[in-house]
């Protein structure tokens, strides 16, 4: 995962400290602090030099350090698909002169990530083509993730101040002197699941230009997490990608566990794998079903949704909730699975495949569906990587990047499964990849079930996990630990970590900074569909208006995760 010594050495040679590149030792990923003047050159070199080959910009985020002279850090996470290594760059800027050169020209993935940093911290990016607020509305004053911003301070969106693209009011004529039309899709539109808005310019039925607006479900996850103890954040992570709530919790818990240096016991890990993979199936079912529904096929949704209901029943038995289950804890799980769990999972393993088969029989060779989706919304592998795509959408473009294989966690390296890819990168390919992933997930669940052995479900480290209730009532020490954990929360050692897992939509990252206190100093979520969705307006150009609906459904945009 981290860069090999020789590559690091050649990086240090190319950018010595005399040029303003300072190495920060002792990090989970090689980390360098970079002067902002050097950033464009450095970025270009890191991307193009085959030694480094950082073709993917995973994440950009900001961090506020009010007591520092250079108040803000802009943090870049880079990833190289060929070498499978990562790099973190930090660019410090002061409040008075908070301008950083944009890297949009190097990685297009920077587009929305930089806008988010601007929105949340007020750091400007020179050379960015469309730098404006992205999550908060235009009437919003101040920058919400600055430490001195009061989290309760709201601003009402005033009439007439809604965001619109700069070109929306321009009058344009096509070559036949017909006026082109600007159409608003969303944020409440039958085919935009969740709250997304796309403004398109139409020449007849063909889209000539498009722009998306998001942030309609910006629920302040990152600000809220700074105000809660580490375990209290888990219910919030559930509501990021609410179609597969379990996986967010697992991703977050793994990041914190990395920082703490604890590991969940084997039984907890196996249960996490089983429920995560079942959640992945649920997520893919909703995505495929909604996509089909949008292009006019209602029946398959009714078939596969039954599978979802069956999985819900299992989750409800385990955790008490159906959708947002809050089942994970840092260091393990909230409670053990109920009696009959294995039998229930075996039932699901028998029940789901025929439902998926039914759907496949209706759809996979269906002429209408294929004509609606083949060749629609095509994105080449290089473009997809440039946009920061991950997950099934990237794999449909032919890049076999799956965190479960490249950086295994929870023992995924010991499971036998394949990473399905397609090569055409169109809407139909994304459908095929998801269907195959459902089958692979079932295979993983089957193997995991065999490994489910009795044992503890949460670590016995009393700095992290609550002691068992019977001990709390009988032993003084256990009572004290219980009290301290409840009142102050666990103390996570000072440091920072980028934890990433394979969510249903791709690389789900949690960039976590702890100052040693009971709650995170900064918790940034790298949502996979944020990167995917920023390519959407560019994919639309040249397509028909009806195709935009088919493409949108295939990208699986979950607003909770997109806007956080």
């Amino acid at each position, binding site marked *: 995962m981290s860069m090999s010594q020789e590559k690091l050495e050649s990086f240090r040679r190319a950018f010595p400290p005399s040029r303003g590149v300072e190495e920060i030792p002792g990090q989970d990923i090689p980390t360098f602090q970079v002067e902002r003047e050097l950033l464009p050159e450095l970025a270009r070199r890191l991307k193009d030099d085959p030694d480094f080959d950082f073709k993917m910009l995973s994440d950009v985020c900001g961090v506020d350090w009010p007591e520092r002279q250079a108040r803000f850090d802009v943090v870049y996470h880079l990833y190289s698909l060929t070498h499978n290594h990562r790099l973190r760059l930090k660019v410090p800027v002061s409040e008075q002169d908070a301008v950083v050169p944009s890297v949009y020209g190097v990685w297009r993935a920077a587009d929305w990530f930089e806008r988010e940093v601007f929105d949340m911290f007020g750091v400007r990016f020179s050379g960015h083509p469309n730098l404006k607020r992205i999550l908060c*509305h235009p009437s919003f004053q101040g920058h919400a993730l600055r430490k001195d911003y009061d989290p*309760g301070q709201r601003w009402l969106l005033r009439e007439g101040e809604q965001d619109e693209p700069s070109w929306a009011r321009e009058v344009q004529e096509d070559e036949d002197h017909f006026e082109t039309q600007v159409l608003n899709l969303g944020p*409440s*539109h039958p085919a935009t699941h969740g709250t997304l808005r796309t403004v398109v310019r139409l020449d007849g039925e063909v889209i000539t230009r498009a722009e998306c607006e998001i942030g309609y*479900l910006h629920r302040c996850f990152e*600000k*809220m997490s700074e105000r809660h103890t580490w375990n209290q954040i888990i219910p919030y992570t559930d509501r990021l990608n609410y179609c597969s709530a379990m996986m967010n919790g697992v991703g977050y818990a793994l990041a914190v566990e990395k920082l703490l240096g604890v590991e969940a016991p084997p039984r907890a890990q196996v249960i996490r794998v089983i429920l995560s993979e079942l959640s992945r199936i649920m997520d893919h079912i909703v995505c495929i079903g909604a996509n089909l529904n949008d292009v006019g096929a209602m029946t398959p949704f009714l078939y596969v949704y039954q599978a979802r209901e069956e999985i819900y029943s299992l989750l409800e038995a385990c955790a008490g909730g159906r959708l947002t289950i809050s089942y994970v804890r840092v260091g393990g799980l909230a409670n053990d699975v109920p009696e009959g769990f294995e039998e229930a999972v075996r039932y699901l393993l028998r029940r789901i495949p025929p439902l998926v088969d039914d759907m496949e029989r209706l759809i996979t060779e269906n002429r209408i569906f294929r004509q609606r989706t083949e060749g629609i919304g095509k994105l080449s592998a290089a473009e997809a990587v440039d946009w920061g795509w991950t997950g099934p959408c990237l794999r449909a473009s032919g890049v076999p990047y799956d965190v479960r294989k490249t950086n295994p966690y929870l023992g995924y390296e010991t499971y036998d499964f394949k990473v399905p890819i397609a090569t055409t990168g169109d809407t139909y390919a994304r459908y095929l990849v998801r269907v195959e992933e459902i089958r692979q997930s079932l295979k993983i669940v089957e193997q995991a079930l065999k490994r489910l052995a009795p044992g503890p479900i949460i670590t016995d480290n009393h700095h992290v996990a609550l002691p068992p209730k019977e001990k709390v009532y009988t032993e003084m020490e256990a009572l004290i630990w219980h009290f301290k954990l409840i009142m102050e929360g666990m103390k996570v050692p000072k440091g920072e970590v980028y934890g990433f897992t394979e969510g249903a939509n791709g690389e789900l990252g949690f960039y976590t900074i702890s100052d040693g206190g009971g709650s995170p100093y900064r918790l940034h979520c790298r949502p996979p569909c944020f990167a995917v969705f920023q390519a959407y307006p560019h994919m639309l150009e040249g397509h028909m208006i009806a195709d935009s609906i088919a493409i949108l459904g295939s990208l699986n945009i979950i607003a909770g995760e997109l806007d956080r």
Partner: protein
Amino acid sequence: MSEASVGKPMLPVAGKPPAGPRVSDGSNIFLTTKLDRLIDQARKNSLWPFPFGTACCAIEFMSTIMSHYDMSRFGAEVVRFSPRQSDLLIVAGTVTDKMAPVMVRIWEQMAEPKYVISMGACACTGGFYRAYHVVQGIDEFIPVDVYVPGCPPTPEALLQGLLRLQEMIAAGETHYQRMVAAARAKAKGAVS
């Protein structure tokens, strides 16, 4: 039916059977009610919901209309995405300050009579998102008839909310009906 029985379920009031031989064409069974009450009965059993789904609750709403829970059993399955065609606004999920004007616009576009169900903790009170971009309850902006608690509410809870709304419609207790009743009472007072 007397004024006093408003609010109770409408029961057929059988008159004294007419003398002579019984006929089975239904002409000897009759029912008296106010026209308004009769229309309310019809309205409550054919609600057309507009799902204003923004977040997690929308997924549970989806479960509710799917075959497993099947909301059509209660006469409310005709989901319409056009506010002009629907009379029940189900706000399912968190509403942010950015989204609130959209919600208000949709509510305004709905033809009367219209009813609102607020589904889930976020729509009711802001839920556990007590922060800078989240509306702390949609009743800051639009009147709500039924609040369904839960995060997210189970489909059973939403169905119960729907049944409660139907009871309220039959009893004339919804926000819209009370508004109309108040306007009528005022007009009556002005005449006399």
